[in-house]
């Protein structure tokens, strides 16, 4: 196997770089490097709990970006999937005595069903209407979480045992838990990555660019969109369910609409429509929140300010702007 020699003589550095980066093997090497980095991060002085939180939110943002960045649908209700999955997973593990992997699976399944229902209701509308409808549907889920007996209202579900993965890996050991979360993250990321880089993903991008043309090519756009929405909701649920295991709790915070806003911000800040943007966005926001934890309501003010600055000045997000400067096709 030899790489076909390209004539790279008259290309700018950025183009060359872009060329190299679009090579599959380079991408795979990049992923390998990423996996190694995540695997050794706890030994580089990062706090495992902080890292796990970051991985969960990054996965959440990846799932959300699948819709916003690749289908052009802004959902303002993703907290419903994130929060409800974490409730179901916490409840299943604590009350029904499920193993962690089964608990997480139950939460993910719940998000999948919810996503299919919401998707079929909301997808008939576009743009702003779509955002408003998802927000309203998610608020319904929030009120359900406030009132349903099993969620324990304001207290949430606390003290969820971490249990033993597959019955023999003790998750109360922090490092065991860490590698479990890492495995979940990689699984989720690859599902999304495969979806984006499959014919399905190509059609989704086409829908974003020109919906009527895709329809005229004979594709069932509605079904495609509902599929994308359900997939996004499912992976979001996977992230939420895993977060419940990590923090041993499920609370109203995860299902409130400000959580939906947070994931929108992470994606916007990182760069919507870029593959790695959500990871950077989640990293910045999670770090900021940990850093400002003692500041009360100022966190909200700062979050809001970042939103405003992002929308007014760098709409491509951190990764998007970098890619533009380096002229890389992200």
């Amino acid at each position, binding site marked *: 196997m030899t790489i076909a020699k390209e004539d790279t003589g008259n290309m700018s550095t950025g183009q060359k770089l872009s060329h190299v980066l679009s090579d599959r093997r380079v991408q795979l090497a990049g992923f390998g490097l990423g996996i190694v980095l995540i695997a050794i991060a706890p030994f580089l002085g990062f706090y495992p709990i902080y890292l796990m939180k970051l991985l969960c939110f990054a996965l959440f943002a990846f799932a959300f970006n699948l819709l916003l960045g690749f289908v052009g649908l802004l959902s303002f209700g993703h907290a419903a999937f994130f929060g409800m999955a974490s409730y179901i997973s916490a409840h299943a593990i604590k009350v029904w005595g499920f193993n962690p992997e089964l608990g997480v699976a139950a939460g993910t399944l719940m998000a999948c069903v919810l996503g299919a229902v919401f998707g079929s209701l909301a997808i*008939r509308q576009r743009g702003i209407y779509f955002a408003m409808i998802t927000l309203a549907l998610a*608020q319904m889920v929030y009120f359900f979480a*406030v009132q349903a007996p099993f969620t324990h209202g304001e207290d949430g579900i606390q003290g969820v045992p971490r249990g033993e993965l597959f019955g023999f890996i003790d998750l109360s050991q922090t490092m065991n838990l860490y590698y479990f979360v890492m495995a979940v993250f990689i699984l989720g990321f690859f599902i999304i990555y495969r979806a984006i880089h499959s014919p399905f993903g190509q059609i989704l991008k086409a829908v974003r660019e020109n919906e009527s043309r895709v329809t005229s090519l004979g594709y069932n756009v509605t079904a495609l969109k509902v599929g994308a929405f359900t997939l996004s909701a499912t992976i979001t649920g996977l992230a939420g369910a895993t977060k419940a295991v990590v923090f041993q709790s499920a609370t109203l915070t995860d299902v409130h609409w400000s959580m939906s806003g947070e994931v*929108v911000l992470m994606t916007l800040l990182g760069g919507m429509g870029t593959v790695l943007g959500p990871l950077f966005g989640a990293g910045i926001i999670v770090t900021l929140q940990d850093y400002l934890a003692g500041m*009360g309501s100022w966190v909200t003010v700062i979050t*809001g300010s970042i939103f405003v600055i992002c929308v007014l000045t760098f709409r491509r997000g951190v990764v998007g702007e970098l890619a533009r400067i380096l002229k890389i096709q992200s």
Partner: protein
Amino acid sequence: MTELLGIPPQVLFGQVMLGLINGSFYALLSLGLAVIFGMLNVINFAHGALYMVGAFVAWMMLNYLGIGYWPSLILAPLVVGALGVVLERTMLARLYHLDHLYGLLLTFGLALIIEGLFRNAYGVSGTPYPIPQALSGGQNLGFMFLPNYRAWVVVAAVIVCFGTWFLIERTRIGSYLRAAVENQELVRAFGVNVPLLMTLAYGGAVALAGFAGVMAAPIYQVSPLMGQDIIIKVFAIVVIGGLGSIFGSMVTGLGVGVIEGMTKVFYPEASSVVVFVLMAIVLLVRPHGLFGRPRT
């Protein structure tokens, strides 16, 4: 006194009345949202926060400056409207050439900033605002007791909504507005200052939200969180009514308020979600809303 459907009439009428009051606020807010959406093509997420600012401005005027309810009813909306004009000129105006979603994201950020600032200053517990002297007390209607202030709220909201309808449907500036919604380029070509019109529309619509805030202050506690949950309900109401007509948003607002009140009587657990259930049903039956036209 006979019972209706096994419910004492005082309870039933009391809840319908409460529903009408909530509905008045829904109507005022969704009216503003409809105007802003029509003119600027932006869904104003900060609408709830500005409603809260209206209530707080009235409260501050009373506590720091000794200005009473009636002057506040004029002054507070003016303050909120001015704030709206500043926000529109400095921020929103930069986004008109982009996807509409950016306006939603920007106003979401603004809502977070405004609510966060007030939470820092005043906590989350909320403070009471006294009912104005002239409207204290109430009427005994035989089948129920009607507090004067509540009756005033419903009447005032209907008058303001009607006034807005008149302004938009029956005056010259309203005709410019409607024409600009249809075709901005053409209206501009006739020499109408469309950017100014947009600024005024935004300012006026958020002033309505401020007005609703002042009216709400004596009924609910004045709290930094008061705008948070109402705005999402209003979004659902906007979806139910469709962003089609002013009349539609008024009727839908009041109607949803009453339905909410009835739900509190018959099935209290569902009262907080009934709006969203209604929305889901309407979406299945009439995707563009009860009064909306299918948008292309």
